[in-house]
């Protein structure tokens, strides 16, 4: 178990290194002069020279990469070219917003998707099941930015049921979280449905029924618990992948999270912040993989035995 964990950890470090190297090289391939962005359009050649010297922009890219890794080795992720703020601080101050948004979203979609998946499996082939399938397919195909804007326009701006934007309290998260949840509910409901259908046809479920276990007991104790095992894997990956979804949602709802930080840094070609947010995302993905690995073995001991 420990060897497997350490091996995975080793590969995670390799993945992080590869990601940082690739992003750094790609960013340096983008045409343009970062000094211009830092100093502004009306900066004189002398000022541009000073800015380039300050941020080592007048040195070759491989040397700058060396400075970057040297900083990383000392726990320094760098400073923003644009704001001069430490990148770690920029990310950490925004992390609570993104984490809260992601948590509320996951709770929302699982709270709806689980009962929906179980009941459509129980009433397989019914109008309810087919209707759910249609709605699930529809929500799956909605673009995040469009859905976010529509919910904002109708529910917040027109009907005034929710705040339009910003993050002052939990209530401000409901609409953005609902955006992310709506996009995921359909997929998860179908996933749970499919697993439940398979599980409900298993011999041990037939045995449970034969033993006189109640239908609710069959569905939730025997069916759902087993049907959720593959869902946990996908959920772990999706939570990491949520960072992609929050970019649109946070920007539409003006939430000060990592998504808005990422967008702003890209527009400003703020290399240290782009590197920081990409590495942070990579860290989340790698971390989620590790957690899923451990959780999977805990949920299904047979996996541990196979290992």
């Amino acid at each position: 178990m420990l060897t497997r964990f350490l091996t995975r950890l080793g590969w995670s470090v390799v993945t992080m290194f590869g990601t940082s190297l690739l992003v750094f090289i790609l960013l340096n391939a983008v045409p343009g002069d970062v000094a211009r962005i830092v100093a502004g359009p009306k900066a004189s050649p002398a000022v541009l020279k000073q800015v380039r010297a300050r941020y080592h922009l007048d040195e070759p890219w491989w040397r700058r990469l060396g400075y970057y890794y040297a900083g990383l080795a000392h726990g320094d992720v760098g400073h923003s070219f644009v704001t001069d703020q430490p990148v770690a601080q920029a990310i950490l101050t925004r992390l609570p917003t993104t984490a809260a948004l992601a948590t509320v979203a996951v709770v929302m979609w699982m709270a709806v998707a689980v009962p929906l998946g179980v009941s459509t499996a129980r009433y397989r082939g019914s109008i309810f099941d087919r209707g759910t399938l249609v709605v699930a397919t529809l929500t799956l195909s909605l673009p995040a930015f469009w859905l976010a804007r529509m919910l904002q326009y109708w529910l917040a701006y027109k009907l005034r049921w929710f705040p339009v934007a910003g993050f002052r309290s939990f209530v401000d998260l409901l609409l953005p979280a609902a955006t992310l949840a709506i996009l995921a509910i359909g997929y998860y409901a179908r996933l749970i449905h499919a697993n439940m259908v398979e599980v409900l046809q298993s011999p041990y479920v037939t045995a449970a029924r034969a033993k006189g276990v109640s239908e609710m007991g069959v569905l939730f104790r025997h069916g759902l618990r087993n049907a959720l095992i593959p869902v946990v894997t996908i959920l772990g990956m999706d939570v990491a992948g949520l960072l992609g979804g929050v970019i649109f949602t946070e920007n539409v709802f003006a939430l000060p999270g990592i998504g808005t930080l990422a967008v702003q840094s890209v527009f400003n070609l703020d290399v240290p912040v782009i590197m920081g947010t990409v590495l942070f995302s990579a860290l989340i993905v790698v971390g989620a993989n590790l957690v899923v690995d451990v959780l999977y073995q805990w949920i299904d001991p047979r996996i541990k035995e196979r290992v």
Partner: protein
Amino acid sequence: MNAPAQSRRRNHPPRSEGVGRWGWIALLLIILAADATAEEGGAAPRRGGTLRLVSPTDWRSLDPVIAFDGSSTPLQKLLFRGLLDYDGGINLIPDQASDWAVSPDGKTYTFHLRPGVKFAHGREVEAADYIYSFERVLNPKTASVGQTYLMDIVGAEEFNLGKAPHVTGLRAPDARTLIIELKKATFVFRYILAMNFTDALPRELVEKYGKDFQYHMIGSGPYVIKEWRRHIGYRFERNPFYSGTDGYVDRVDLMIGGDQALHAMMVERGDLDFAIASAADAVRFTHDARLRPWLLRVPLASTDYFFMNTEVKPFDDVRVRRAINHAVNHERMLKLAGGFGTVAHGIVPPSMPWTNSNVPVYPYNPERARELLREAGFPNGFKTQLSFISSRTQDSRMAGGIAEDLRVVGIEVELQPLIYSAFEVKVATRKSAPCGVWGWQQDYPDASNFLDVLLSGDRITDTECNNTAFYSNPKVNQLLGQAGASVVAEERLELFRAAERQIMADAPWVPTVNEVVPVLVNPRVHGAVAHPVWMYRYEKMWLTP
């Protein structure tokens, strides 16, 4: 903004009986007088409340040595003040100076500071604070954009290059007197002294906080930053030691984030007081009788333009450049800009304010354009590449519009969208970009800021060149040189007008639009008026309860 309905409410006197005709007339006059008084009284600024602002993105800093863009200036004015300011127009007035004088040779500026002006931590502002602030701008460690503007001060260059410990041209004979000596008479230096980077800063706090001063900014303006959460928002509260009369609201909250569509919704809902509108929202507000009064049009002292690199074929031929001027449909350019603005007929924007009669105009005339192209040896047109900043919606639209107009006269245009930093490098490098779309907003209200900075042949450099047309006409260079050396306002104006006429005759640009920025203002906000230099001034706005 118009005076609010509430402030016009009259206090009618009780109706009396048996007053007769003259009595009624007298009563009517009293009522009218009372009404007028009520209006005046209602229009007087009221103190209190929170002004709620928004910006889609945060700024690098509001520190005067760093921040240098149109959008941060109104915020900086909340925090910092300097020697000179503008009145409601472009006339300079002493701000935290009690008086100022320029020597007859135009080389020495003497300022006497107003007594009782204090920084927000309670210490009085002294002449030495200005010297320190100027030297901070000139210090290469701050890499301030402002250093270019202060290089005319005696000893500035030596200090900047590390050859002198102080700028010898800055002197403070006593705590309230500041003397600035220039290497040469420079008329525009007075405008430079009204720019934000010459504002006073307290040395002890700047040195105490070092790089972190931007998070502890203290100036002598009407407000201080109580809270600044990067990319999230700002909260400004009163400077208890401010001695000026403006700064009416108790607090200014500024939200960072969201796009213009969201901001428009928030203003309409009453969640925000003031926001720049997208063209689409501005049109929506214009066509809605209820919302129309909420729309403030702020003429920007800027000119958007299509430049042609006069060192690159075929734009080295004036007939080609004139042909293109005839080929571009200016009215359509204005529509592409969302209809907000005016058609530009010259280099210098009219909102500076600026007038220049007899400037050559090029009416939209594709036939004449074809004729000129034939004369220049291009009967079948030619191919060229047009660069523009892809993230600027207006520039993208204009680039597309110009490409379509030029196609009509046989010129094939390949559009080259570039990110901002790449665009800047390309167009500012000699013989790199054949043509492109760009714009310039004034730093100070003087024609030299457009004509000299953008079109003087004497300023051409191989890289990082502001003269993107790489245009040089010895006659124009001479006129601009004479104007730069003159300290007589009227003489300078005439020289600049002559230079603009010649430039337009040589047609290195197609000036397209002088922008107007549509701003949505909640009716509870008063005093929100367009300013020709600062766009608008938050510290002069007040609120109805």
